[in-house]
């Protein structure tokens, strides 16, 4: 078994049977995000990306690029965890590419993680959970169990 050093650029991708518009809504509207993003209500407002956990923790990050329904780039600070929150902010890019047969390829690139080693080591399982959650929500209308 080899050990993995946390990567400073991480890429996650999933094919979803939905239009780019539907995927865009699912990643930018709180009534959708709270169903798969660990209960966090996320919304874009005034050039910022606001997050609020079920427990009431709130924070926000700058939106760097916003081209609905194709591309969203925003800062990432792991404000949900005090130790990781102290690390330097990183960056998240969402890309939505329409494919044949009503399928959208959703890719998340989490990079600029050089100053955030704890975040880099911790987000991998999270992004897998989030992306499989978006897919399940859009394809079946219900969130993943558990």
């Amino acid at each position: 078994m080899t050990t993995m050093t946390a990567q400073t650029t991480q890429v996650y991708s999933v094919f979803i049977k939905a239009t780019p518009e539907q995927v865009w809504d699912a990643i930018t509207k709180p009534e959708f995000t709270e169903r798969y993003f660990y209960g966090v209500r996320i919304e874009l407002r005034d050039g910022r990306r606001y997050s609020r956990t079920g427990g009431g923790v709130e924070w926000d990050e700058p939106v760097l690029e916003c081209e609905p329904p194709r591309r969203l780039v925003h800062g990432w600070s792991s404000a949900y965890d005090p130790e990781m929150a102290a690390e330097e902010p990183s960056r998240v890019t969402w890309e939505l590419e329409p494919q044949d047969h009503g399928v959208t390829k959703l890719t998340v690139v989490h990079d600029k993680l050089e100053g955030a080693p704890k975040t880099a080591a911790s987000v991998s399982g999270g992004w897998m959970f989030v992306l499989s959650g978006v897919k399940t929500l859009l394809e079946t209308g219900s969130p993943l169990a558990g």
Partner: protein
Amino acid sequence: MDDDDRIFKALADPTRRHLLDRLFERDGRTLTELESELEMTRFGVMKHLRVLEEAGLVVARKQGREKLHFLNPVPIRLIHDRWIDKYTEHRVAALADLKSELEESA
């Protein structure tokens, strides 16, 4: 061929699994880097990478003048959710039932 077929087909080859292991160790590699670790022609490595890309297991991204290959673990997670979880849950449940039966009769 559906998504699952493509993933299982991509994984059913030792060279492609080896490529995934190389990317797991260090992500974001060029074709030239990957090729240097394999006893295979550049064309052969490209062919395998294409199968992995079509299955969504590898995502290639342009960075400056280079094309970098990244391991995408999401399809494996989906396979895990779809296949492994289902069967291991049953096994765990069966063992739990056996335990309570044995303990009751003891």
